[in-house]
């Protein structure tokens, strides 16, 4: 899926989940596909595959634009702790638990 397709208003969230799972085929991974953001080893661009955990946090993330399929830039990797991301030109800090609930794959 191209970046233009992602930006299109008509793309479906189900396409993204499927794509994340395809990308990770053959690689040991969690059930939803993708690696927890808090465990991501390198700074740089990643794509959100799924957001797990508390409904309120999922909604808060959605309001900030962190949705399955969105591309984010990891500015300050967490190493299992809190991390800092950039999305839609905004810098957002996430605590360890929230970051662990965001599953990402390389963009």
């Amino acid at each position: 899926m191209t970046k233009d397709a992602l930006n299109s208003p008509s793309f479906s969230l189900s396409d993204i989940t499927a794509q994340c799972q395809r990308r990770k085929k053959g690689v040991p991974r969690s059930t939803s596909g993708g690696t927890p953001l808090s465990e991501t080893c390198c700074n740089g661009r990643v794509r959100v595959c799924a957001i797990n955990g508390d409904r309120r946090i999922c909604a808060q993330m959605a309001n900030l634009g962190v949705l399955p399929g969105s591309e984010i830039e990891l500015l300050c990797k967490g190493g299992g702790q809190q991390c800092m991301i950039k999305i839609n030109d905004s810098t957002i800090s996430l605590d360890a638990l929230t970051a662990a609930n965001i599953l990402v794959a390389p963009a």
Partner: protein
Amino acid sequence: MDTNITIALSGNPNAGKTTLFNHLTGARQHVGNYPGITVEQKEGCCLHRGQGLRVVDLPGTYSLTAYSVEELVARDFLVNEKPDVVVDVVDASNLERHLYLGCQFLELGVPLVIALNMIDVAENRGVTIDALTLSERLGVPVIPIVARTGRGVDQLLDAVLAVAATETRQQPAFLRYGSDVDEALSYMMPLIRECNELTALYPERWIGVKLLENDEQIVQKAAVSHPAAAVKLKERCETVTDHLQNTIGVYPEAVIADHRYGYIKSILHQGVVTRKFVADRLYASDKIDKVVTHRFLGPLIMAGVLFALYTFTFSYSKVLVEWLSSFFALINIGVDSLLPDGPLKSLISSGIIAGVGGVLGFVPIIMFMFFGIAVLEDSGYLARVAFMMDRIFHFFGLHGSSVMPFIVSGGIAGGCAVPGVMATRTLRSPKERLATLLTVPFMNCGAKLPVLTLLIGTFFSDHQARYMFLATLAAWFVALCAAKFLRMTVLRGASTPFVMELPPYRFPTLKGLAIHTWERTWQYIKKAGTVILGISILLWAMMTYPGLTHDRAAYFEQQRQQAQQAAVTASEAKELLNKTLQQIKAEEAMEGLRNSLGGRIGIACERVSQYAGIDWRTNIALLGGIAAKEVIISTLGTAYSLGDVNRNNTASLSERLAKDPGWNPVVALAVLVFIMFYAPCFITVICIAKEAGSWKWGAFSMIFNTLFAYSMAVMIYQIGALLYLR
């Protein structure tokens, strides 16, 4: 002035809403709280083309769903107060994210004007926005502005007046949310129409969206207004939620948010926004962040900045504090020379002037501290400090933003708990805020320092620096452990996830800094000033009345006359006479104190305090310390028959304590620990009560801290006595 047009300023946090508010209203603003909660309500007024405008600055929010108090407050204001115009302040350099809230205003159908703030920043980043086309597509006026300089603000107010004058009501925008959600909404519409009370306030489709988003307030209102329909609505919402969870693993709100962003993209990507440069490049803020939030460099820079803030506050405010102190001393001298000795003079001098002086004495420190905090806050650095400290504070049940109140209160020994308590306003979670409020007084404030210095200097002079450092460490340890204890007991609850937008680094405006500093300082003067005067008078009365009996007063008068006569007959030197008279005066003062209500309480408390090695005289000083910790030394001085003791010159009191049989290093350590941790001073208690919204928390802080300090002091005294005194 006709002020019948109400404007609500809304927008995401860091969109520049408050900057615009300050620009519009200047000094014509006042800050209050929304009823029952601690979210600030700022209101002001301005005049444009002869029309008076009432401007309300709503709390910064990302959405209009009731996920947080701020969001609930903003939404309730829009729905209940029905402002004539809502001005959505959006950051032009980050349009997509900021229009998300604007999109929800369109769905709610409020009369809207969009202020494209920071258009200059967007232009510098090579982003050009066609405001006219954007306005046509959204169906509302879009005005580019720069709130910092005032550019475009007149045009914005013209647009506001035009919208306010429009007769036709803004219709709620109709957005598509995908087949699953749209089908569910179609099914829900007839049921929603049955809930008359809800539809009278909100648009029907909007209610459906909120029910699908599991908005607690709307779900509850529906259940109350029409229980039968609410059950069916809930069932349908659960069916859709389960379906979406099973198929694509998301909640309905994610699908709705996704389509809102899709709608915004479809508007922006058709020539409204053009970029000269690559969109993904890192800006200056990101480059700075790579250094200041670095794993190793970050904490070092933070320590440096906090130390600078501390030095700035307490060094530069010193001159003003001294001026104020001299000013009150002058007034006292004036009162002393004008009024005859007696209760009135004592009341004015020791009660009123000491009380008002006590409140105003803190004002320069508070002003400087808030100025420093405003610089850190407006520049964007404070959010980074919170980010770095969150990991440690999270362990103790606090939030990363709790660090500033701790530092301000004396984290680096010598702060003040009053601005510390007020600095907790940056915390959003009520329980974390309360835990911070209640534990910041454990820090070693500037008023405790002279007492610590006196006791350590007297009994542990060989290791003075080491003990002072240990006292600072102990304060941190106790405050954090107490916070953990509170969060595990009375303030039990989940920690707030630290999800926070870090604003880009900006140069603060002088006007903004001045307004922030003044409004917080003025709040302090108003809050503390109204109550402290009464309490100060009360404490004065407790330490003065009932005073000496007639017999004892006559006895001291007789002593004085005898001394004068003896001096005349023996032709003694004037100095010796003065010394004798001073001694008689001191003894009289001590006996008066002993006989006063405060003295009697001190003696009564001795039954309990003796287990911590504290006698009645120290009890009186500790009681006085509740008024202000500075009072401890002067009261100890009176209680140990020294008359008035200057707190900066404690040598004589130090000698007296060292020689007193009731004092030894173990007692000194127990008293030291008690003073560090017992009830905060009254000004702090008042601030805690006001900030927490209830006097019960003020009382709790006094009782909890005193009980904790007492148990610690008893433990130290008993173990110390067992090991060293037998």
